[in-house]
C-alpha cells in the first residue's frame, strides 16, 4: 500500500499489457478458437477478481457472487430484447441496478459474520434464482432468447461477437485496475483493516458497515455488466445457467489458487484454472475424471498451499510483494 502514484506501479503496466494481449492477439491472428478460450478466461478473471474484493480484501466469503453475474445478464438482456435498446446502455443499466440491489441487500446480510454470512449468500443466490425462474417478465423458466437480429444492430453476428469480446476484455482490464486502485486507496486500507480484524478496524475509526456495503455493491457492478455481455454473446439466458452456484464456488477456488488478496495472483489463478478445466474437459485421458482431478488439486492446494501461488512466491521472493501486487 502507501501512496505511490498508480502509473508508477509495475502491476499497472502488467495489467495493461495483459489486457492488450487479450484483445490484440486473437484480433490480429483472427483465431476465433483462441478468442473463445480467452473469453472464458477473461470472464473468470472478472468473476474472481471482483469476488476477491469481498474475500481477499475484506474477508467476507460470498458464495452468491454469481447472482450478480446472472442478474446482470437478465437485466441486460431484458433491456436489449424486450425494450429493444442497444447493448451499451443495457450494460450500464444492468451494472447500476445490480449494484444498487447489492448495496441494499448488503446493508442487511453484511451484519452477519464468518460462516453465517457465507450461508446467507448461498440463500441469496438460490432465492434470486428461484424468483427469476418464476418471474414472467424475464421469461420465467423459459428464459430469454436473443433474436439474431439483435446482433445486426452491431453490424452482424460476427462483428457483434467481436465487440462483445472486446468489451469483456476491457471489463477484465477494468476489474484488475479497480482491484489495484482499491488496494492502494484509503478505501482499500479500510477494507484490509476489516479483513485483519473488524472490531479493531471499527475502533480505529473505519466506518465498517458502510465500507462493507460499498465493497459489496462495487463487487457487483462489473460482474453484472459482464453478465449482460456474456449472455448477449450466448444468445440465450436460462435460470440454471445464470445462477450456477458451482461457478461461484469455482471462482473462490480460482482466487485461492492465485492467492487471495493479490491482484495479479487472482488473475493468474482464474486463468490457470479455466485453462486446466478446459484441458481436462477435451482431453481424452481425463475427460471422464475431470471433476475428480480438479477436486484433488483443490484439496492439495487447501492443505499444502493455503496462501496460493502468489503467497508462495512472496514467501520465497519477498521483494516481489511490492512489485507484483
Amino acid at each position, binding site marked *: 500500500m502507501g501512496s505511490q502514484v498508480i502509473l508508477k506501479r509495475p502491476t499497472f503496466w502488467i495489467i495493461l499489457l495483459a489486457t492488450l494481449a487479450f484483445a490484440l492477439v486473437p484480433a490480429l491472428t483472427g483465431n476465433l478458437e483462441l478468442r473463445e478460450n480467452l473469453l472464458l478466461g477473461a470472464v473468470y478473471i472478472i468473476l474472481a477478481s471482483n469476488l476477491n474484493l469481498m474475500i481477499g480484501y475484506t474477508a467476507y*466469503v460470498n458464495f452468491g457472487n454469481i447472482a450478480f453475474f446472472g442478474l446482470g445478464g437478465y437485466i441486460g438482456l431484458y433491456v436489449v430484447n424486450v425494450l429493444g435498446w442497444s447493448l451499451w446502455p443495457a450494460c450500464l443499466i444492468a451494472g447500476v441496478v445490480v449494484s444498487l440491489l447489492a448495496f441494499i441487500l448488503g446493508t442487511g446480510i453484511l451484519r452477519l459474520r464468518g460462516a453465517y454470512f457465507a450461508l446467507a449468500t448461498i440463500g441469496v443466490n438460490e432465492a434470486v434464482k428461484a424468483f427469476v425462474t418464476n418471474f414472467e417478465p424475464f421469461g420465467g423458466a423459459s428464459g430469454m432468447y436473443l433474436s439474431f437480429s439483435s446482433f445486426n444492430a452491431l453490424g452482424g453476428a460476427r462483428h457483434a461477437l467481436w465487440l462483445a469480446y472486446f468489451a469483456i476484455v476491457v471489463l477484465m482490464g477494468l476489474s484488475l485496475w479497480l482491484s489495484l486502485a482499491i488496494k492502494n486507496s484509503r478505501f482499500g486500507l479500510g477494507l484490509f483493516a476489516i479483513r485483519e480484524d473488524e472490531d479493531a478496524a471499527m475502533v480505529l475509526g473505519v466506518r465498517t458497515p458502510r465500507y462493507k456495503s460499498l465493497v459489496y455493491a462495487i463487487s457487483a457492478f462489473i460482474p453484472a455488466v459482464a453478465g449482460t455481455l456474456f449472455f448477449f454473446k450466448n444468445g440465450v439466458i436460462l435460470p440454471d445457467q445464470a445462477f450456477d452456484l458451482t461457478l461461484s464456488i469455482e471462482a473462490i477456488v480460482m482466487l*485461492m489458487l492465485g492467492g487471495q488478496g493479490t491482484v495479479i495472483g487472482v488473475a493468474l489463478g482464474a486463468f490457470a484454472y479455466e485453462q486446466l478445466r478446459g484441458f481436462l474437459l477435451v482431453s481424452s485421458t481425463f475427460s471422464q475424471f475431470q471433476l475428480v482431478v*480438479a477436486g484433488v488439486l483443490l484439496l492439495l492446494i487447501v492443505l499444502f498451499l493455503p496462501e496460493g501461488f502468489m503467497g508462495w512466491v512472496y514467501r520465497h521472493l519477498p521483494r516481489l510483494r511490492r512489485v507484483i501486487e
Partner: protein
Amino acid sequence: MIFDLTASVINGVLVGAIYGLAAIGLTLIFGVMNVINLMHGATIALGMFSLYLLTTAVGLNPYLAIVPVLLGGFVFGVLVYWIAVHRVIGSSDLMTLLATFAVNMIIIGVGTAVWTTSPYNVDVSVPQLAISMHGYTIPGTQIVAAVLAVILATLLYGLLYHTRLGKAIRAVANNRAAAELMGINTRWVLAISFGIGIAVAAGAGVLIATLFPFTILSGANYELKSFVVVVLGGLGDPAGAMLGGIVLGLIEGVTAPFVNVSWTPVIEFTLFVIILVLFPAGLLAFKWGRK
C-alpha cells in the same frame, strides 16, 4: 380444502422429519467444529447409492441397509476428517469450506464416472401401512421413513446426552480447551463427530432413496434444504435441526394449496436469508437443548 390441508400437513411432517435427519448431520459437524460441511449433499447421495448397491447386489432389505450404511458412513467420515479436514481445523472458514468442497467434487466426479448422472430407483413399498382418506394417501414408505428418521434422531440424541462419548462430544462443542483439560482427546472427538455427522447424512440418504428416485447429484438439493433447516433450528443444534426440518416440511406442505408450488423455493430461501439476518441464533433458538 380441510382434507387437502390436513394431508399437506401430514405430508409436511413426514417429509420434514427426513429433512431434519439430513440436517442433523450438517449441524452436528458445525456445532462441534464450526465447519460448514460442503460435502454434505454428496454424502447423502452416497447413502442413496449405497442403498441401491445393498439392495440390488447384496439383496438386503432396504430398511436393514441403514445399519451397514451408518457404519460405513462413519468410517468414511473419520477417514475424510483425517485426510482432508483435520489440517484446516481452526484456520479460516474459507479453508474448511474449500476442503470439504474439494471432497465433494471428488465424490461427485467418481460417482458420475461410475453411475453417470441418470436416476436410479429402488423399488420399495410397504402397502400395508399406507393410510388413505378422502382420496389422499400417505404411502407406507413415507411413514416408515419418517419413523426411522425420528428413531435415528432419538438414538443420536440419546448418544449425545446419555453416553460418555456423547458428553465428550458436547463438551468439545461447548469448550474445546476445557474438554482437553478434562482428559478428553479432542482430536479424536472431532474425528468421531465428523464421522457421526457423515454417517447420519448417509443414513438420511438411504431413507430418501426409499421414497424417491435419485441421481448422484440429488444430494445437492438436500444440502440446500439442510442449510435452510439448520438456520431455522439454530446452527449447531441437533434437536433444533429436527424441529427445523419439520417446520420446513410444513412450510412446503402448507403453502402449496395457496401458491403455485414452483414458488416454494422462493419462499424457502427468502425466509432463510431473513431469519439468518434477524435471528442468527436460529428461529427456534435451541442450542444443545438449551431452552
